[in-house]
């Protein structure tokens, strides 16, 4: 089942990680680059991607990092998670970044580099 956390429409190339993301600790808010080498997307930029990751972890202030990414024009165009958490949900709500949650099965079918479209108003949310 697809669950809409923040409604909206977006399309972009998938950047997928198996790591839960600590936005405050792992993402450079000025460049959108992952700067924690423990991540499998280390040194990759999340700018304009559809960012696909299990869920957010860590500091509650990570919500401000997501807002900063948007203000600095380096944010993802959408986010897709397996589990919704308050930091990512509230950060996306304020930054107006569409965010949805997928069940494990659907989440697993999404592949890195794939072009994807999200439209939360449409009957088929993912294309």
């Amino acid at each position, binding site marked *: 089942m697809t669950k*809409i956390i923040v409604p909206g429409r977006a399309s972009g190339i998938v950047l997928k990680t198996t790591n839960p993301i600590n936005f405050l600790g792992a993402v450079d*808010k000025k460049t959108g680059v992952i700067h924690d080498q423990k991540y499998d997307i280390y040194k990759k930029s999340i700018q304009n991607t559809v960012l696909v990751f299990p869920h957010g972890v860590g500091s*509650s202030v990570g*919500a401000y990092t997501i807002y*900063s990414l948007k203000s600095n024009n380096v944010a993802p165009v959408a986010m897709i998670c397996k589990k*919704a958490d308050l930091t990512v*949900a509230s*950060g996306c*709500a*304020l930054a107006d970044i569409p965010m949805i949650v997928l069940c494990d099965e659907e989440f697993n079918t999404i592949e890195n580099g794939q072009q994807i479209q999200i439209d939360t108003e449409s009957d088929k949310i993912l294309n």
Partner: protein
Amino acid sequence: MELTKEEQSALNGEKGDALQTAYRILVATGEATNAEKLIPINWAHLSGVNYNTIGDAGEEFLRKLSKDAKVKVKATVNPMGFDFDHISEFNHIEEDFIAKQKSIRDSYIRMGVEPTFSCTPYDIYDLPKQGTQVSFAESNAAIFANSLGNLKTNKESAFSALASALTGKSPYSDLRKDDIITPMTIRMAIDNPNELDFGMLGFFAGKVGDTSVNISGVSQPNRRSCKALCGGMGTSGTCAKFQFVDSEDEESEKIAFGKEEMNEVYDELNTAEKGDLITLGSPQLGLEELSDLSKMLKGKSFQKRCMIFCSRAVQEQARNLDYTNEIKRAGGEILSDCCTCLTPLIDTNETDAVTTNSIKGAYYLKNSTGVDVNLKPLSKIIEDETR
């Protein structure tokens, strides 16, 4: 999530931009936590005060928001980057940082928050009656409130707590209900644990636990150890609550926290043999901890710089009880309104490593400040670093 007519009209923007923003956040966090409705809360504790963490975008957001937004319930706030009373002693802090920090402080005050600048609101105020719904963003404070304070809160984000402060409401999520399922019990298998061991237990529990964990094998830890446990747990994961249990529930999954598990946490966070300076306080120290410290320091002096972080309210109380004189005589620098985590007071040009007893502090010193960390319990710090 179902909204009342009034909530829906605020979401539609009929009550101004600030409330519309707040309700958009509440709806998203409500959906995220499967809440069916919003409920009233009567205290919000906000994170997102330190310029180091929220940056220019955060400063600008708060400046604009505070033009017409006002908090509806009691609201307290997290530490800033530094202590304005002592800033002249730290030459390396840039003017721009000071100006932006001042703007953030003023924005919060304009919105009507109580200027606590503390990550330990539970050390400053008497807690409301059992079962009271609150919204705490600071993770150690949320875990303390749920686990030791008999209050109920989500592990809020900076924005969800801010939205709660502006509306007096929060999603009625699982953590706010009485029947939380706790599917895991962690057994403390370390003998005579000190506060550092409890911090490591918390860090471990945060990683393996989901929303709530049981902890067995522990009898009545002191407040310093309890705070260390909350701090460690909040740093590593999404876990928002623990309860000490006597015996292990048959149904729950059981995991031991023994030497091996502890060493793994220690090796992840301890990266130096010794520190160039010492920090005490993340979470900020309470009155009882300052009292202990002043007794431990009788007749001794620190052999290197030691920064001691506590809230301003606690510092005043400690001064009245004469604890601060002994600490200052021993060379301790008492700083308020800030803490070990993400403070710019530590000059990375001059500091390679910091000694601390805080697991939470260690994580942010290493990952955000970018210095090495030497972990020791307080008793060992006093033994090794004073004469």
